[in-house]
Structure formats: C-alpha cells, structure tokens
C-alpha cells in the first residue's frame, strides 16, 4: 500500500485541534489511525478466506458547552479534517441541548512519545506461502483422523499505527503488532456435533506479538490430538448434573475473569452509561473497598504495562493519552478498584484516570475497556492440584458463555471435561457446563496454580458500545479450583 507519512499525520492532528478551538471547543483530542490486517483461513484442506485490508482516517473528540461531540472522516486533507472538526463541535453543541451536567475531566500531564510493541518477527514480512503451508499442513493432520467431518485453521495479523494529539499538548505515536492463530476439528456423528480447538476457541491464541507466537504453538503436534478428542467425545460419558468441585483450565478461566470481573468493574457500566445495551453492574460505588469479592487467595489486577506481558490489553498510552498502569482490582479477596477514564475518575475519589480508554478504530469514540485483567498466579503445581482433588471435574476450552446484564449469574460450557477421582485424571466427559453467582463462585476458589502454568490469554472479540466496537482484551490465568459449583445445568431437562 502507498506510504503513510508521519509528518503529514501530525499536521492533520495539529490542524484539527486548531479548528476545534476556533469553533468553540474547550478541549479536543484527535486520533489518526492506520490499520492493516491480513486474514488467512483454511477449511477441509482448501484455502478459505485470503484477504488483506487497510483503513486510515481521523477521529476528533471535542468538549463544547460542557458536552461531548465526536466526528470522523477518511478525507485526510486539511479541508477534510477541518470540516470534521467543525462537525464534532457542532455535534457537541447539540449534545448540550440535552446534557445532565458539564463534563469534568481529571488532570493529566502532556506527553510527547513514540512507542512500538515488541515483536521478533513481523508477520507481514513472513511469506504468505509459508503461512498457508503451515495452516494446510495442520489441516491435513486433523483430516487424517477418521470421524473428523470438518477442519478449520486460521491466522490473523494486525498492524495498527495511531497518532494521538490533544489540546493539552500531548503528541503520542504508537505502533502495535497483533497476531492470532488457531485450529479446530469438528465431528458430526449420530445426533451430535462435537469439536475441539487449539490452543483456544475464538480463533486460537491472540497476543501483542509477531509471527513468533505462531511458531511457539506447534500446531502440527497438537492437530491430531484435538482431532482424536473431537471424535472420542461422541463416546464419552455425559457430564453429570451435580454440585461439586470444578477445576478450570487457564483459557476457560481467562474468559470467566473477562465476564465476571472485567465487565463489572467498567466504571461506565457502573454509572449507567451502558444501561441500554451492554448493561450495568452489581458493583455499585458503595461496594468499593467493602465487598468480599473472592476468597483471600484471589488477586486480580488490571495491568496494561508491557511488564505484565504482551496481551491484547497492553499499550504504552490509552486512547485518551493516559500512560499504561497497573490497578489492583481484587486484593486478597477484597474489591479494590474500577476501570476509569478522565471523566469518571473523580467519582471514585481518584484524581487521575486509570488509563483504560480504548477505541477500535479511527471512526469510533474511545470508551472504557478492559486492558489485561489477570488473576495473579498462586502456589500450586498442576500435578499437585489434581492429586489433591478427590472428586471433581476438569473443564477446558470454552464452548459457550453467557452472563446476566448486571454480571451476577453466569453459565459457561466447555468443549471437553475430565473426571477427577482419587487424585487422578479419569474418563473424558462430553458437554460439560457450570453455572453460578459471581461472588459466590469467586469466594469458593481454594487453589490457584503457579506462574509456570500461567498464560496471558487473548480475547479478541469483546463487544461493547453503540455503535458496537470490538476490542481485544488480555486475561492472565492459571488452572484453578472452585468448590461447591453447580455443574451440568446447561443440559438439564427440568
């Protein structure tokens, strides 16, 4: 694609800010973003999707008459961005016709910086033939297994450049390289469809990494394993319905964190700003520093810093120009913090945003999003955890997920389960599921595996906002044990 010149982008940012001010904005920030993406899939030994895309444009957010306005355009000329800035101010003034109170923003420093996410191998520089050959080889390995009726593989690469400028003087360029990869084997037999995914569902693992992520997954070794499991699930025993001990694999626990910790701590939800769509939260402001969210071995952080790992929620600055931070969410079981922005921080007694404003693209308004919401490692080895469990079920790899609009009651099902009897992993179980109430569930956690079993999982498909925005979030987790959990309700008949 033709080159994108940084100086030109900064000129557009500066011009947009100037026009916004002239038109009456008391504050403005702008994001020029250039997004590049490559998608490769195979199905049953044939190439499926093979596509590349790029999108570039500018989003301008302004405060005028105490209210917000946002406009975006892909007309990247001085006239184009000037019209867009004027439109943003005009929209803000219309907002003021039905505002509740003037917006107040927490103070923030101005930053001038440039940052690139670390990666070893640029996935856009790896030959397509190499990438497709690996996917087709993994696809072939799965199809070798008798009983497999559908095989699918995918790779997805993204490179995102953003130029952020604000009227307080920030000028921040960030470049992020994101890689995702996974494989799936499906088997139809009799009256059921079973499938297994590796290394996770949702297209596999996704991280702020280069092609080295793909190479680390060893697809060819795992392809026949999941294919055999998909077929074997047909003859496995049905997961029982009972109340009992549950051990969750790391990727499933990552999604559990996402739904039952990550979403309820979003301060915009708590304040009712998402009431019409994504919902609200049971974590009302009076719960902060008072609620016993979890058992005392549970520690959860929101950490966007690269030191935490290269997750989908890792960056140097959020899309409001606030530096990446680590915030305690649950500390020794106690509820300690929310995800906030410059507009909401003061409502929880903070004088600074926790740095969680993120946008999907140049044509979307930044909103509060999860960064990396992670359960910190515990002390158990996985072998000891199994050996210590007399009667339980191990569940791995998400199949379905659902939770109410205040984030109390959830139900998850997974692709595969394993019976644990007398400290040993026993027979395979099909159609496993579990359900519960968020705080009861987290308070029943009595064992968390240690750092060597901990992975920063990527959830690439988190939807929120109107217009809808899809965001990638990170969730560090290691296998953990929960007691007295309701198991098997998804397939109950009564």
């Amino acid at each position, binding site marked *: 694609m033709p080159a994108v010149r940084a100086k030109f982008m900064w000129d557009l940012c500066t011009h947009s800010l100037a026009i916004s001010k002239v038109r009456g904005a008391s504050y403005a920030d702008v994001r020029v973003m250039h997004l590049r993406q490559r998608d490769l899939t195979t199905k049953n030994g044939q*190439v499926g999707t093979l596509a590349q895309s790029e999108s570039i444009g500018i989003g301008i957010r302004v405060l005028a008459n105490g209210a917000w306005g946002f406009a*975006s355009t892909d007309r990247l000329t001085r006239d184009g961005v000037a019209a867009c800035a004027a439109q*943003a101010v005009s929209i803000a003034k219309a907002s003021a016709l*039905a505002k509740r109170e003037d917006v107040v923003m927490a103070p923030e420093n101005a930053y001038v910086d440039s940052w690139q996410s670390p990666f070893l191998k640029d996935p856009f520089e790896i030959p397509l033939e190499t990438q497709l050959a690996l996917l087709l080889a993994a696809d072939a390995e799965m199809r070798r297994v008798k009983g497999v009726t559908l095989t699918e593989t995918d790779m997805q690469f993204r490179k995102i450049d953003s130029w952020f400028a604000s009227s307080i003087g920030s000028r921040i360029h960030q470049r992020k390289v994101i890689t995702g990869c996974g494989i799936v084997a499906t088997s139809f037999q009799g009256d059921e469809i079973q499938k297994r995914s590796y290394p996770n569902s949702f297209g596999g693992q996704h991280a702020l990494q280069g092609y080295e992520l793909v190479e680390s997954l060893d697809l060819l070794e795992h392809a026949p394993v999941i294919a055999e499991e998909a077929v074997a699930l047909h003859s496995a025993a049905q997961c029982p319905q009972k109340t009992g001990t549950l051990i969750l694999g790391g990727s499933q626990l990552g999604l559990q964190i996402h739904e039952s910790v990550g979403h309820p701590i979003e301060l915009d939800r708590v304040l009712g700003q998402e009431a019409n769509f994504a919902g609200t939260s049971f974590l009302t402001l009076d719960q902060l520093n008072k609620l016993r969210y979890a058992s005392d071995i549970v520690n959860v952080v929101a950490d966007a810093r690269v030191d935490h790992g290269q997750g989908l929620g890792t960056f140097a600055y959020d899309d409001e120009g606030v530096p990446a931070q680590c915030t305690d969410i649950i500390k020794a079981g106690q509820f300690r913090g929310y995800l906030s922005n410059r507009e909401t921080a003061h409502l929880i007694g903070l004088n600074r945003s926790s740095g969680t404003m993120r946008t999907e693209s140049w044509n979307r308004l930044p909103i509060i999003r999860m960064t990396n919401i992670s359960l910190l490692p515990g002390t158990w080895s996985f072998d000891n955890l199994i050996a210590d469990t007399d009667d339980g079920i191990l569940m791995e790899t998400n199949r379905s997920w659902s939770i109410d609009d205040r984030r109390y009651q959830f139900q998850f099902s997974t692709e595969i389960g394993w019976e644990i009897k007398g400290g040993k992993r026993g027979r395979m179980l099909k159609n496993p599921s579990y359900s519960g*109430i968020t705080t009861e569930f987290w308070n029943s956690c009595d064992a968390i595996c240690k750092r060597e079993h901990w992975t920063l999982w990527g959830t690439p498909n988190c939807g929120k906002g109107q*217009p809808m925005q899809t965001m990638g979030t990170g969730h560090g987790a290691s296998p953990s044990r929960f007691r007295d959990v309701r198991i098997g309700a998804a397939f109950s008949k009564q």
Partner: protein
Amino acid sequence: MSAARKSSAGAASAKGAATERELRGIIDTVLRLAKSIGVEETEVHVDETISALTRFANNGIHQNVAEHTVNVSVRTQVDQRTARATTNRIDEDSLRAAIEASLSLAHSQPKNPLLLPMPGKQRYRRVNRFIKQTAALTPEDRARAVRRACDLAVKKGQTAAGIFSSAQSHSAMGNSRGLFAAYRDTHAVFSITMQEGSAASWAKENAADVSHIDPQRLAERASDKAHRAVDARELAPGRYTVILEPAAVLDLVGFLFYDFAATAVQDKRSCFNERMGKQVFGNNISIVDDVYHPLQLGAPYDGEGSPRQRVLLVDRGVPKNLVYSRASAKVTKKKPTGHGFMLPNEYGEAPMNLVFSGGKSSLEEMIASTERGLLVTRLWYIREVDPYEKIMTGMTRDGLFLVEKGRVTSAARNFRFNQSILEMLRNAEMMGPAVRATGEEAFEMVVPAMKIRDFHFSEVTKF
C-alpha cells in the same frame, strides 16, 4: 505519495453522499487499472456509509458521534486462484496498490479446482429504501427527541438510557465481465431503557423511514413497563408457558440463519443436517427468506452479484429448501439463490431476510388465554450450547412478568434459560402477526410474538 484523494479516481463528493455515477467511477477505475496489468478477472465492491448516533444515559446525552467512510474492496482471480484486498483510500495509487495486494495474495496459494469464473451481467428487481427525511436527520433533531424522552423519565422519577441513530448507505459492485449492481438505503433506530429503582424495561424500533418511529411512544411504553417491573418476585426455575414479545422471538430464532446455508449442511455443522424434509417444527411454522418483503431492508443482490431470490425455507414445520451461493449450488447441482457472501470465504451463504408466517393472535389474547406463564420483553446474551439440538442459553432482561389466570399479576426476577429452538418451534401454541422486530443479538427480521409451552428456565438471578 500522499494519503490524500485525487479526483481522477472518481472520488466521492467532498461533502455528502456519493452518487451512483461516482461509485461506478471508482469501479471503472479499478477495472481499468487491473486490465492494464493483465489481471484475468476483477471484482470491485464500493461501500459508503454516512451515519450518526446520539447516545443518552442518566437522562442526558453522554456520547454523540458521526462518521463517513468509503471502502473499496478488490478481488482478483488468476489461474484458479482468488484473494481480496480492501482499502479506504480511493486515489489511483492506493487502488492500484489494492489490486497488487490482492494479486500477491492470490498467487501465494494452491489452485482451487472448484473456483468458478466471475458471473456476467445480471438483472435485478428494483427496491426503494432510501428516505430523504432519514438521511437529513440532524444532531439537533435527535437531541430534541432525546430531551423529550428524558423529560418523561424525570417526570416519572425514572432514569432513561438509549440511542437515536440515523444512517445512509450507498453500495455498488462491478466486475470485469460486465456485471454492475447498485443499492442505497437509509436506516434509523430509537432504543430506550427506562429504569425505576432496580427495575427496568425497554423498547426499540428501527425503520428505513424515521417518520415511522415515534420516540416518545417508545419512551412511554418503556416507562410504563419499568414501573410495572418493580418489586419483582423470585419464582422457582422450571418449565413455563411463555409469551415472547417479537424482540425475544427474533433474538432466539436469529441463531437459525446459518443453519439454512447449503455450505453449513455440506460441512455437517447445520442443525438441518439429515433433517431436511422431516417434520422438525410444528405445522404452524413457515419461514421464507424474502428481501423484497415490505418490512425488510437489504440489497436485491448478494456478495457475488447474484440476484436475491425469495426462498421457502420451512413449509408447515418441514425444512424444504436451503440457500445457495454459486459454489454450493454447483456442488449440489442446484441454482444459486442469491445469498452468497463476498468471496473468498469459508461459510458460503446465509439467508439474511427471514420472514415468519405468523398468526392472528394479539399479545392481549395470548395473555388472556394463559392460566400461568411468563411474559418476556427481551432476551440477553444468547449463546449456543448444543449446535445440533440447537440448545441456546441466555437471560431474560428488562421486564419479565408473571401471568396468572389470564392477566399480568406481578413482575418476576430474571431467569436463565437453556432451551432448544427446535423444541420451542414445535411448542408454539399461538402467534401474532409478523412484524419487523429488532433486538440486540440478531439482525432485524420479520417475526411474530409467540406463546410457547414448556419453555425451560434452569436458574434465577438476583434481580
């Protein structure tokens, strides 16, 4: 090279929407550039969207956005290989780069013996779904309507949240074999949630013509139901007769749409695999896919340029037909039905304009005929638990009411359901007239309210 547009590529107007001629100009530019470098076959899609959305919460506007985007998507085909590249830059350099990127991707893969040549010129039925009044809606128009809805909430001691949006879309596609198709429409949505204490209710409508939406009427409906939703009783989980309002029906049956794809059946991931021609649903269930239905929106052609056909999918409970892309039609020796997605893809096709036959019962008649049951406003966070039995899980939301002896007697706490859609559509006892329904889980379709017996609720939540 500058990222700025050059007019030589037939750029869209500086302000406002591009004309069909301007979109065609972009397509012609791509086809000319591709021909000049010897590309065998080329297909171009141009999509322009101009949209705005006003969002409110806590009785005031808190977000208010607008966007204008143009995307050009180029598919090249050479020697039984194809790939796609998309850009939102429409200067000639960028269009040429998109062609070259598509070619580079195409050359990198093995030959696909099943790949068909691009189709030639087609004939399309005209539809008129562009309403000037919707396209002309201003931020002030939206703000005034929002203000009135919020004033009602304040007057009633309630809290309002929602959206008021409007959009216009202009699309065109063409290829090197002479195919050309164009479509434009408008679209407006008003959605409102009214909260009273811990209770809430919701109302939403969408239409091509914004004058068909009455925001204040929706606000009043949500307000009234939110008031009736206070003091919700906790009921025991179990099987209940339910009266599902159209939004609740839509968000469940919307999960069936991929199952009607011929490719999904070939891949053995459809719930209709080995069930075609059998009595799967009750004999009061008939479903067509019909983009030309007066309550539907959508282009009269698919992603491959094939004209969309009206297809009878389910006749009196029996799945009769699937929809076909050109490729799946070739494999099964059928005719394409005009439901294909843009190539290349791995899903093939899907019906996007489902229309249920419905019935004649009113919601009031359904309630009056119910000895004990639940009235469901909407459903939330629906996900598939079992793909073959089509068991779905999810929650009720924003207004669940207990019906006893033919009348609504109280509000009920929200339930989780685990319910097979196949079983549900065998248990439909009464249906209302099919209406254009809108929810949050599925795109808009024409479905009725339904009274369903033995709907399975497995657990109850805290509110």
